[in-house]
């Protein structure tokens, strides 16, 4: 990013721009994981789902020349990954955290395997809306060039927040997540709810992947995700299973991730690689300060294995 003209002000602007640009995958994966975890299950495999979604979206966009078909295809594969995870985890003695790690490896392997032939061609990008038209500064215009998926993600966060509280579906999800027995007593089949919640979570995570390959960085390669899918799990804990919290936390992560490049652009190069660690350090510090050894986390679904 060129910083001519606005000097030091480029740093907060670049962080804001970075936050908006980088946060979108985090928003989708963490919202998906929130739905899954609210139903009482954890899916650590979303990293694999995300990368496989990125590959699918890219491949389909290349073949059909439509980025939106790519997003839909990614959602479908994400849902399939979620169904597999959900189906396996309904069996007794199967550890959902371990299955998640296994699904992650499988998803990554399959994405690299099938995506080998798509490293070269260029897919059409997802559209973005230039909210910075009022400014003559190119930096501001670039920063406010906001992708449609970011806006959808933000709306989705508020919708989910509302739906958890006010809809029948939200109530069912929360009951299943808090107590398997209570759900059975109400005549709800907890396994089926969890299966569907994991599938929805997977399809949302795959949208995050589609954003990576179809907008930013905007191409498919094997290093496309640097742990966004896994970080989202930490992010959900940090956001206390609250969709709006997820949205804000994702912005914070994006901003932390943009700190290094922003400082580098004004000539601060000391410790450049350490800034890459900023989002991870931030998450860890927040988890340390907000956790407690004696009580489970506030807002945590009762049936979840992560916080026990």
């Amino acid at each position, binding site marked *: 990013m060129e910083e001519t003209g606005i000097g030091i002000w480029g740093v907060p602007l670049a962080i804001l721009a970075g936050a908006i640009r980088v946060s979108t995958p985090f928003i989708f994966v963490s919202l998906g994981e929130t739905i899954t975890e609210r139903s009482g299950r954890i899916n650590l495999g979303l990293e694999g789902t995300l990368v496989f979604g990125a590959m699918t979206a890219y491949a389909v966009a290349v073949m059909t020349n439509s980025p939106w078909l790519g997003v839909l295809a990614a959602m479908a594969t994400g849902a399939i990954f979620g169904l597999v995870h959900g189906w396996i985890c309904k069996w007794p003695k199967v550890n959902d955290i371990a299955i998640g790690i296994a699904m992650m490896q*499988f998803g990554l*392997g399959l994405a690299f395997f099938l995506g080998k032939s798509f490293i070269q061609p260029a897919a059409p990008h997802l559209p973005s809306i230039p909210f910075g038209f009022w400014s003559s500064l190119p930096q501001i215009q670039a920063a406010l060039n906001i992708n449609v998926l970011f806006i959808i993600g933000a709306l989705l966060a508020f919708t989910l927040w509302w739906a958890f509280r006010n809809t029948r579906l939200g109530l069912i999800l929360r009951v299943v997540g808090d107590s398997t027995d209570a759900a059975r007593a109400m005549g709800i089949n907890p396994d089926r709810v969890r299966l569907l919640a994991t599938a929805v979570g997977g399809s949302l995570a795959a949208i995050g992947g589609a954003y990576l390959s179809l907008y930013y960085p905007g191409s498919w390669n094997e290093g496309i995700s640097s*742990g966004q899918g896994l970080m989202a799990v930490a992010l959900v804990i940090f956001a206390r299973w609250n969709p709006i919290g997820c949205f804000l936390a994702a912005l914070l992560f994006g901003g932390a991730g943009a700190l290094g490049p922003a400082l580098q652009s004004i000539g601060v190069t000391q410790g450049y690689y350490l800034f890459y660690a900023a989002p991870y350090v931030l998450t860890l510090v927040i988890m340390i300060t907000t956790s407690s050894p004696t009580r489970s986390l506030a807002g945590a679904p009762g049936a979840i294995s992560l916080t026990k």
Partner: protein
Amino acid sequence: MTVQANHPAISVASDDPTALRPLLEWIARRAEPVAIGLAAILIGLGLFSLFILAIGKSPAMLFQLMYTGGFGSWFSVQNSLSRAAPLLLTALCVALPARLGLVIIGGEGAVVLGGVAAAAMAMPLGGAAPAFPILILMAIAAMVVGGIWIGFAGFLRHYRGVNETISSLLLSYIAIALMNQFVEGPLRDPASLNKPSTKPLPPEYMLGNIPGMDVHWGLVIGILACILSSILIEVTSFGFAARIAGGNVRAAQIQGLPVGRLIAGFTAIAGSFAGLAGMIEVVAVQGSANASLAAGYGYTGILVAFLARHNPLAIIPVAILLGGIDASGGLIQRRMGLPDATVLVLQGTLFIIILFCETFYGRFKIFNPDLWKRSL
């Protein structure tokens, strides 16, 4: 958790006439993980064959090549053994905490920092000093750093209630950033241009091969670590306490066991093994610390540990098997025109099926001597 408890003492004392009964019981109990494990591997290979068929290739040829590339000749066996060496240690990094019920997935971080610590240790001491003490110092440095790194995740788990799976993972990303910073910054060898590295170790500091083989000493170190871990878990009171705490933390606390120290201690030992894997990678393979340290050994180690059901001795054959699968990747790529990720798909499939088959433990009467009477 099984509902019915296993009481070997009761069943041994039963009025069964045959003297063979205790032996049969012993076999049955040990046969269960082997039989279920083998069945899981067969199912996994079957599913993987379907995948290979679906993309229009021959699974028979693939398995043939996999055998040839991994174990078909003395050369390929040695290659597999070399690749197994770091996996033994990173698998221990998962298996030991698992005995306490902890899922640590950040071994990769301890590997890279262990490698950097070893390289940093060798730097000021380089030149005149004899090799053996330096190698020992490098190993200690790597183990201390790796131990602190994973031990911190254990510490956070017990004293702050932070989930160890997530914290170890975050720590591993932080470790990789730290490594890049060290290797690009203060420890960088100015002569390394495209691939920033620390200064190469002098050849006499490199860990040599086992006499008569083309396999470095890392394999022996890894196997020793597995045997020591097995003794730690099965024989010592420390390991016994850990198994109790792993079964039921509340019960262990009521018994007055130092659960906090057990968790911190086990995770620290586990991390020190992963750190050692990093040191071996530097002194036996790379010759310097650089980004190649983050080659995924930490993640494959998770798979090895779960395949071995967190049994340190079972890790040895499983690591060699996976080392062989890894080693055959290149051959499959060349002969069949399949991407190198084929091996990853296979590993992922096996991993999922093996974890799925956990559900069959305790379901078959034949493996449970307490149920024999009623069925026979």
